[in-house]
Structures are given as structure tokens and as C-alpha cells.
């Protein structure tokens, strides 16, 4: 049995290491930070962790329906592809910063990219 992406990347420790770096990049980027204005930071961080765990190929209870529901209200605030791409860019930079090998980064980005339509409610 080959080791999974989640194990290779470092499991829960990797999620824990990535979440603050990723979330800080997102909040520091004025192009997207306003989408995160009204949320309880602890709760938001919990959601980021769940998302990273999913993107890292780890345990998750991802459902496209939940993802759609969670982002539906952001449509009125103008959530669009460029914002999705900016956040995805921060994820990629986070992984580079943590020196994750590029073949693993590619796999993570592919999983993250697969949520595009659900996040944007397309």
C-alpha cells in the first residue's frame, strides 16, 4: 500500500503548521480580507483547518452542498474567480514556505482547485 498524500505531507502536524501562515496571508491581502471581516476568528480558523485537511488528502467531511451554503452570502459581496485564485495563491505560497515538495503541492492545489465551482456557487 503506497503512502497517502496526507501522510507524505505530514498529517495533522502539517495542517497545524500551515493554518496560521495561510490564514495570516489571507487576512493581510486587502483584495480578499474583507470576505473574512464578519467572522469569529476561532471558528474561521477551525474551518480553515478542516479545509486544509481536505486539500491535503486527509480526513474530512467535505460536502459540496456545505461549501456552497457557506459561501452563498459572499456572492452579494462580489465573490468571484479572481478572489478564489488569490486565496489559492496564498495556499500555494504557504506550502512553498513550509518547503513542501513541489509534486505534493501540485496534488494539493488540484484538490483545492476542485472546490472552485462550489465556492463560487456556479
Amino acid at each position, binding site marked *: 500500500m503506497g503512502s497517502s498524500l496526507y501522510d507524505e505531507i505530514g498529517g495533522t502536524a502539517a495542517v497545524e503548521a500551515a*493554518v496560521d501562515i495561510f490564514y495570516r496571508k489571507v487576512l493581510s491581502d486587502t483584495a480578499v480580507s474583507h470576505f473574512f471581516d464578519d467572522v469569529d476568528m476561532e471558528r474561521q480558523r477551525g474551518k480553515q483547518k478542516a479545509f486544509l485537511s481536505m486539500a491535503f488528502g486527509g480526513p474530512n467531511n467535505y460536502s459540496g452542498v456545505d461549501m456552497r451554503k457557506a459561501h452563498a452570502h459572499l456572492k452579494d459581496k462580489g465573490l468571484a474567480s479572481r478572489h478564489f485564485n488569490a486565496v489559492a495563491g496564498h495556499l500555494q505560497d504557504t506550502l512553498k514556505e513550509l518547503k513542501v515538495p513541489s509534486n505534493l503541492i501540485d496534488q494539493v492545489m488540484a484538490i483545492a482547485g476542485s472546490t472552485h465551482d462550489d465556492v463560487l456557487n456556479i
Partner: protein
Amino acid sequence: MPHLIFSGSTLSYNKGQTVLEALLDGGFDVPYSCKEGNCQTCLMRCVEGEVEEDAKRGVKDTLSKQGYFLPCMCHPTDNLVLQPSTDTELFCAATIRVKNLLSDKVCQLFIEPAIPLYYHAGQFMNLRNDQGGVRSYSLASVPKLDTYLEFHVARMRNGEVSNWLHNGLDVGDVIDVSGPFGNCFYLPGKPDQDMLLVGTGTGLSPLLGVVRDALSSGHKGKLLLFHGSRKEEGLYLHKELTELSRLYNNFYYYPCISTERTSYPYKASRADDLAFKTLPDLKDWRVFLCGSPPMVEGAQRKAFLAGANMNDIHADPFKMRELRSEKRD
């Protein structure tokens, strides 16, 4: 649509409501305060059905195992059978031992619980008056240093519980307390970590507990405490904290006045503004933020963006929903 039963009566439930909202709409006089999952005043028991995890966040394990959850955070998906909390599980009697006035508006209470409590300095407890009104107050005492529980109570205009604590109680009287709750406290380990503490008003009380706990545990890192108030008399422990900063060379105290002109030794600034100006880089710092919700929430974000890890940021917003038509000051 989930079907809710409270104490034998069926509740009408509208989509999107919390269980607490359904109870209040149904005319049930259940206790509550913050409505945001912090104060635990509305704790209630679910005896049948599944409550989502979000509604159990912060509830003590021993209580959660008995079905306790927070109706204010619960958007039910399952049919639930609910019971009000039973007093004996949540509240215990405590006797007022000492009562001092620290300023015009703040009184200091020392209380002895009938049963010894296991708590951390900086956690909070719920105090209940004879009318059933419940409010949360932070613990300023440190278990290993102090015999009694210490609270600082700010008198609110029209505040039912705070006025009762100020005026309606004497030494020797017995009140009901529950708790402790909350995770804004000092943990030993990492004794070299520097600590930033920012509090407004009686947000000072948990910070005082944390500072005394840390110093008496031999904390080696720096502790910077910023206490903010609109007026000088609001810095109600100025003398004591100044003295403490003379006793410990790793403890620094910054008294901040936000609205009126002021002079040395007070700083003319909001406490959080001065804190972030003084400490632009908080990487590896431990941060405690207590007091007015806008300050705490803004400062939480600023501390995080200044490099502190979320796990190292302890925020305790003193949230209190308006229960009356008259506005507080």
C-alpha cells in the same frame, strides 16, 4: 423541520432559529446573556436527540457527557427533547467574605464557595441573584495564592445583577455561583515566552489573575500589561500595579487613558493602540485580551497579523446582550 420538546411542551420552531430563540419566542423564561456561546448562562440538557458539535464547544466534558449544550449556538437538525438545567449540577452556594470599593464604579468581592473549586486564574464564573438574573464575572484570584475567589464588579446603569452585587449584598450573605468556565488563563510551560496583556475596564480582573499566576510560577519572559479606561478613576488598580512593577523587573504596567487629557504617569492612548505601537512584532508572544468586545475582537486580529499564533491568543470579550430597553452607558 426538527421537532422540539421543552419540559414536556412542544415548541414551535422556525427555520434558521437557534434553540434559545425558539424558547424565548415560545415565552419560556430561560436564563441567557451573551447569545454567542461564551457565557454558558443558557446551558441546558438534551435528553433525546443529537446536538451538533458547535453547540457543545467550551462546555465542560463532565457536563457535555450528561447532555448539556448551549441552546444559543444550536441550530437543530434532529428532533430534540430538552430539559432545563438542574440547579444542583450547575450552581453551588458561596458566601461573601470581603467587599471593598475599588473606585466609584468597581467593587471587589471575595467569595468563599461551599465546595472547594478547581479553577484557573482568568477563568470566569456565573453569579446569580435571587431574581434569577445571571451574569459572568472573571476570576482575579489565583488558586494557589488566595483563599477566596476574587471578582471585580463594574456597576452598570440599570444593571440588575451588578447593582445587586454593589448595593444589595453584605458580608456573610450567600449567593449562587456556577463555573468555572472559559479558557483565558495562564499555563506554565514556556516560562521564557513574552506575554502581552491588554484589558479595558474590569477586563483587568482576569489579567490580574493571569499576571499574578505567571509571576508566582516563576515566569521569566516579559509581561506587558496595558490597562485602558476613558477616565483616570477607571484605572482602579493603578497603585497596586505600579507597586507590582517595582517588585518584578519583568513586569511592565502601562496605564492608558483614551478620551480625556492626561499627564504622567498615564499615557494618552487607547490601550490596544499603545500596545501594538510598542510591540509591532508579536511572533512567539502569548497574548491575553479582555474587556470591551470591539477592542478584544480588533486586537485579536491585530495580534494575529502582528505574528502571534492563534493558539497563543486568548481572547475574552465581555459580551452582554441588551436585555432592557434603556441603554447602558
